[in-house]
């Protein structure tokens, strides 16, 4: 990387190898991205495990937060999927917490946002997509393909609508992954660009500084919102696979 590029708004997304690991030809080095994933993993486990270590009947603040996050996702699944969505709760909860902690950890200055990489968000979206598709075929067998036939539409329109339905279905992992990736990328880039104006403008730098402060608040909201959106869309896809239309 050139030294000019090193301070650019996009340099924060650079993957840096911390510990080179090679498995034959494959490079699976431990990078700054891997580090943040491990930190997220450890923090989530500490948050959940330590929060409920006392198993209090009347919860304290920490335990309340754990229970709140638990009941938040339970409620999400119940509202979107219904009672039979309970089985997929551990997966949706893990997904939500992982994305949420990834986004939130990225808000810490000098840290790294692993959800700002398209390959990570796409891998997550692909797991959801493949899992939901398998779920649909397991649940309904070949009957699952009727999902692509819009109900209450005359047969004459099928040649037009079925390809549209299939394309919209296939674009799900793309929209799911790009939404998260683009939000993280845009927000962090914008923060960095405006932060760069602060020293450049001297005394007037107070204006971009105020903007950065406000934008940081907005980014915190977006960090939560995108995790929520990822989780709720996963729930909706599960619902489609279970109940078709």
């Amino acid at each position, binding site marked *: 990387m050139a030294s000019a590029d090193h301070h650019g708004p996009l340099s924060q997304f650079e993957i840096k190898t911390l510990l080179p690991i090679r498995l034959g030809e494959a490079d699976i080095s431990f990078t700054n991205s891997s580090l943040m*994933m491990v930190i997220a993993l450890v923090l989530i*486990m500490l948050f959940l495990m330590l929060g409920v270590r006392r*198993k209090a009947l009347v919860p304290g603040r920490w335990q309340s937060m754990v229970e709140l996050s638990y009941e938040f996702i339970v409620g999400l699944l119940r509202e979107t999927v219904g009672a039979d969505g309970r089985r997929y709760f*551990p997966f949706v909860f893990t997904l939500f917490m992982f994305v949420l902690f990834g986004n939130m950890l990225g808000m810490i200055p000098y840290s790294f946002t692993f959800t700002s990489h398209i*390959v990570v968000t796409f891998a997550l979206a692909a797991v959801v997509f493949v899992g939901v598709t398998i779920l649909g075929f397991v649940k309904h067998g070949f009957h699952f393909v009727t999902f692509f036939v819009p109900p209450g539409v005359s047969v004459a329109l099928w040649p037009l609508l079925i390809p549209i339905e299939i394309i919209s279905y296939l674009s799900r992992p793309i929209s799911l992954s790009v939404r998260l*990736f683009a939000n993280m990328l845009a927000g962090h880039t914008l923060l960095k660009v405006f932060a760069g104006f602060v020293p450049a403008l001297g005394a007037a730098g107070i204006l971009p500084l105020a903007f950065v402060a406000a934008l940081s608040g907005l980014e915190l909201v977006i960090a939560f919102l995108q995790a929520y959106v990822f989780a709720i869309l996963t729930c909706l896809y599960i619902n489609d696979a279970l109940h078709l239309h």
Partner: protein
Amino acid sequence: MPQLEQIDTYLSQVVWLVLTFGILYLVLWRSALPRISQILATRQERIDGDLRKAAELKAEAETVLAAYEEAAAGARAEAQAILRDSAERFAAEAAERNEALTARLAEEAAAGEARIEAAREQAMADVESIAVELAGLAAERLTGTAADRAAAEAAVGQVMKERG
């Protein structure tokens, strides 16, 4: 953009994602989430138990209240009966005494009237004899001779009859 340029890091990112996400999923699925759900279930059980106990206590309190109200109503009815009985007895007693008093008063009044009548008759008799004597004395003074007592009596009797 590093996201699209550092393609050689894709494998490492995906491998570490699968590893961390997989571990997190297993830990949450097997350990953390059951623990939380158990806490919530225990609390729900406790709340349900408490609510049930409260409902039982309420029912018990209601039966006690009903018994109390029944007893109170019985006591009230008894008290009213006693009151009514006493009132009747007192009224009868008073009437009886009143009657006795009235009778005695009437008796005494009659006796008094009789005594007055006797006294009046006595007085009238005395008046007649005095009048006869006075008439005799007056006639003696006027005529100088002793008056006939029988004639005087007859004259007085006639005058008294005339004057009522």
